[in-house]
């Protein structure tokens, strides 16, 4: 059996992209290091490692643990709709919580910044998302019931 043909144009493109990528990383990295007075590379490195750890050690395990619990505790179709609602609500909260944190920590120092009650706003959004989840589940459940009640007559 002959080996699959090598896609040379794709290989060249990948190589080109890779080289461009490495050059951009080196460019950014070197400028950060040469501009150390302003960029404070050591503090920056701590923040970068912290960014990685916050996701890999905190956020991801909590999300995956929650998914694991849902799989064990919540039965059948409800689980699918609950998972979808939680994904949507979680992603919206990932932005909304920062506004609440900032507002709580510093208040509105500026005339234009953070002039709403973001805690109330996030609660409203999460309530709407929860209602949408319940509505989707109810519609799907009603459809299934209708299909089931109709099916004997169709036969």
């Amino acid at each position, binding site marked *: 059996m002959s080996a699959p043909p090598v896609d040379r144009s794709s290989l060249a493109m990948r190589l080109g992209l890779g080289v461009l990528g*490495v050059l951009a990383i080196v460019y950014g990295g070197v400028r950060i290091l040469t501009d150390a007075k302003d960029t404070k590379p050591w503090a920056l490195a701590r923040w970068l490692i912290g960014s990685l750890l916050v996701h890999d050690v905190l956020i991801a395990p909590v999300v995956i643990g929650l998914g694991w619990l849902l799989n064990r505790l919540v039965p059948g179709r409800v689980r699918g709709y609950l998972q979808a609602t939680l994904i949507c609500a979680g992603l919206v909260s990932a932005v909304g919580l920062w506004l609440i944190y900032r507002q709580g920590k510093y208040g509105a120092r500026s*005339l234009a910044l953070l002039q709403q009650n973001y805690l109330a706003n996030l609660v409203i959004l999460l309530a709407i998302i929860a209602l949408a989840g319940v509505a989707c589940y109810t519609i799907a459940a009603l459809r299934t019931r209708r299909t089931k009640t109709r099916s004997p007559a169709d036969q």
Partner: protein
Amino acid sequence: MPETERVHLSSLLQRTPPLWPRFRSTLRGPAVTARVGRVLGIAFGLCFVTGLLSHYQYAPWHWLPIPAAPYWGYRLTQGVHVITGIACIPLLLLKLWSVFHRLFVWPPVRGVLHGLERLSIAVLVASSVFQLITGLFNVLQFYPWPWGFIRVHYWMAWVVIGSLLLHIAVQLPAIKQGLATRLAPADGPGLSRRGVLVAGGAGVAVVVATTIGQVIPALQPVALLAPRQPRKGPQGVPVNRTAAAAGVLQKARSESYRLTVNGRSMLSMTVAQLEAEPTVATSLPISCVEGWSIQAHWRGIRLLDLVQRVGGSSSSMVSVHSLEHGAYAQSSLTGSQLEHALLATHLNGERLDIDHGYPLRLIAPDRAGVLQTKWLTRIEVSR
């Protein structure tokens, strides 16, 4: 090392250790990852290009000044920059969730190339999370770090886009395969892969819909997560830096206030003389580097008229200086921006509010808000 021990070691590396994390969820997989990754890649690309355009506003090359047209250019590009940046936060979380199980592949490193690839992914994840969160903090005027935001955000953008390009180069065959793979239906009664994408997409859509009102004022009523409400502020326009914060309250209202224009000759004008000058009206946006923007009606003296009076022309390099001190106390303009620039005396039909730069502020098309210098007191005309 004896032969038996070597065999033992290699078989250990092939077999996953008993306590090593195992992921059984069928929701993750290349079909989901490639689809989320495609959207995220486009958003990162948009964010990078619009970010470069914004950075160029601060220090344009002499031979390529910022053009005046389209007048809404910076409003569009910076609005896109901030909104796509915010939308990337949920998108990145979704993408990282879809590949999290790959963090625990066994053996962790198969060779030098595999090790380098994993290192590049660590750089991509760390720099992306960092860039998005610190970018959002900047929008919230929150700086809990010791470095200068603008430089680090700019240089780090190169690291992010570089590691993204490298990642695409390495993963291109897997990306193509993932995009060509149909989204398998759910194994059981739980969520399907399509369901993950719909729920994730809805989350991103809600974030965009509730923040974009800071760029499009008509959507302000639903802008529940927008850090700014563009219609809130004196004379219907937001203020970033008040006259009190800039320390110019007294000086801007002082009777000794003068505007001086220095070129081949010199002009010195009182507020009354400035107010007696002929004015023109225009409609231009204030577009903040933090993403919010609003169109407003301005009336003021044509800057070019004063420049010509001291012997300059539209090809002169003109710098305008504020009563305040600090990073944004002055800005420069030339070419078509200079031709269209006003020294604004009125905003939305009223005499300019002190927080908007009374007695005079610069307003020019396609220009970052921080460069629309307020509380002007001196104009230098060179070339």
